[in-house]
């Protein structure tokens, strides 16, 4: 067996079955994901690591419904993403997923508080509920005192914490992060990975994080090591 799944989760939040994905550029076709299967459980921070170009980001985007695989399927919260049309996938993302990206992608015109409130407005929540959730998420990220500042007035680490608050306020079951620390210095990277870990613990969220930063490995509950479109190694620390 190329890898051993040491945890048998009776009810995995995220299941990938035989995912295959190729990209063609010109005559050349490269297989980025090669018959990859994996199960990811709730309440833990799972880290995907591996060399550059091995398909980590591609896997994350397929697992989160941003891209479709060529073959195979994804079961997210026991629902098959491949069975949904584009609209339903969008609705699924709205209600169940949060994202954190390498670039913070905050609107320059909005204050930290407004950045967090904005996606909530599309979830048909009451005004009080929006305010409550936004303020709670910002407080949890330690950004309550900076909530009236625009991105231009925030440091990199603060911006990423606002971006995490924006994802967290939706109370998603699944939280995806692609290289959330690579634009940050070591200290801020530590803070961010700690926060992601705490979200997994305290909210029971399934946090899936892609990074090639080896310093993050010690913070993860489980580390999947990828190479050439496959998972080479799966180490579960059982730290839950």
């Amino acid at each position: 067996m190329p890898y051993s799944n040491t945890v048998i989760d009776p009810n995995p939040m995220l299941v990938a079955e035989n995912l295959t994905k190729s990209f063609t550029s010109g005559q050349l076709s490269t297989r980025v994901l090669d018959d990859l299967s994996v199960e990811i459980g709730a309440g833990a921070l799972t880290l995907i690591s591996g060399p550059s170009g091995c398909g980590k980001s591609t896997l994350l985007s397929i697992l989160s419904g941003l891209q479709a695989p060529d073959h195979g399927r994804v079961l997210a919260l026991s629902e098959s993403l491949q069975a949904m049309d584009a609209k339903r996938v969008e609705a699924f993302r709205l209600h169940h997923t949060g994202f954190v990206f390498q670039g913070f992608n905050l609107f320059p015109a909005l204050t930290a508080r407004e950045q967090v409130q904005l996606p909530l407005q599309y979830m048909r929540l009451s005004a009080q509920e929006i305010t409550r959730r936004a303020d709670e998420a910002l407080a949890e990220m330690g950004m309550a005192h900076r909530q009236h500042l625009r991105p231009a007035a925030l440091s990199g680490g603060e911006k990423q914490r606002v971006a995490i608050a924006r994802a967290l306020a939706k109370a998603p079951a699944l939280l995806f992060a692609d290289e959330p620390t690579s634009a940050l210095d070591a200290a801020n990277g530590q803070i961010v990975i700690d926060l992601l870990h705490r979200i997994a613990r305290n909210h029971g969220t399934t946090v899936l994080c892609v990074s090639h930063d080896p310093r993050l490995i010690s913070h993860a509950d489980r580390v999947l090591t990828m190479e050439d479109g496959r998972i080479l190694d799966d180490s579960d620390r059982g730290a839950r």
Partner: protein
Amino acid sequence: MMVSLARKTLLHEWRRFLPAMLAVSFATLLQLLQAALVLGIFGGAAVYVSDSNADLWVGYPGTQSVDQGRPIDGDIASLLEMNPQIESVEPFYLLDGDWRGGHGTGGVSVFVSGVSTRPGAMMFARVLTPALRARLAYPESVIVDPADLNKLGVQVGDTASVNGHLVRVVGTARGLRALGGADIVTSLQTARMLDPAPSDSGGPTYLVARLRHPAAASSVVADINGHSGFGRYQAWTAPAFARLSVLFWLFNTGAGAGVLFLAVIVFVVGAIITSQALMAAVAASVNEYATLNALGVGKRSLRWVVLEQAFWVGACGVVLASVLAALLIWLAHSNNVPVAMQPSVAAACLGLVMALVAVSGLMAMRSMQRADPATLLR
């Protein structure tokens, strides 16, 4: 308390939207000023109607513009007087004249208006003071627009000749300028004397009438046009006849086509500039929009943001341009430049510009296609 991404972005990054707003302003200003000039210049075709306070005009059937009138039977006046709705009737003579002033101006073709000199007469009631009108009672007296004095080569008090007959300029009144040529106003008697080829009947060119209830003008017109047997004539309400005259000149001279042409150019150029600026604004935040889409905010909602931005850009541009246009039109008016504006025409111009804005918004919406969240994962 809802966060409006469109408005916040507009306020915060107003510099980015400034070109679009200026483009909209410029388009609005051009359309409004063009319309004001056209209305002002071609409104000259209807000075006889718009400077008078008659409710009803009766003239030769099929007349396409006031200046194209032909003599009608003077007996029609008695038909009009029989109508209980009509308060008073007054004849109006309009004929061509060849003016010879002093000072080597050569011949100038003029329109000679023969009007009643009775106090309270309807013709040119809006430009002739009672005293001025009374002066016309002296034979061979004429009144001209002060702006035409140079062209006619005279001063007040000078004599000149029209169609070979002697006339004397007894005063000036602003607002008599006609399209091509000059208007001179005189009494009914003098006008008949100046007519080089008096028609057999000696009838007036028009009969104008005042109604007891001006609001009933359309039904009285229908009533009068329904009669027959009193000779050939046609009746119009004053506004309808004025509009008929303006439109005749607008399209007869090709100016109408020019106006439409310029309007289309302004529309297209304005739409291109505005949509480009909106697209640039989307492009600048494409990653942020893609992030919202990743978080499940639908593409449709995101496109609305662009449309809302377009709307605000348009609204600001239109307001700015309207203020400027009002100022410029007032300035032109006080400098004798022929300009005029009507609420309906102004509304049409603004409507056209908002259509431009809507088209730009729809074009710019397509750039939201590039906000693909998969590109954020690399």
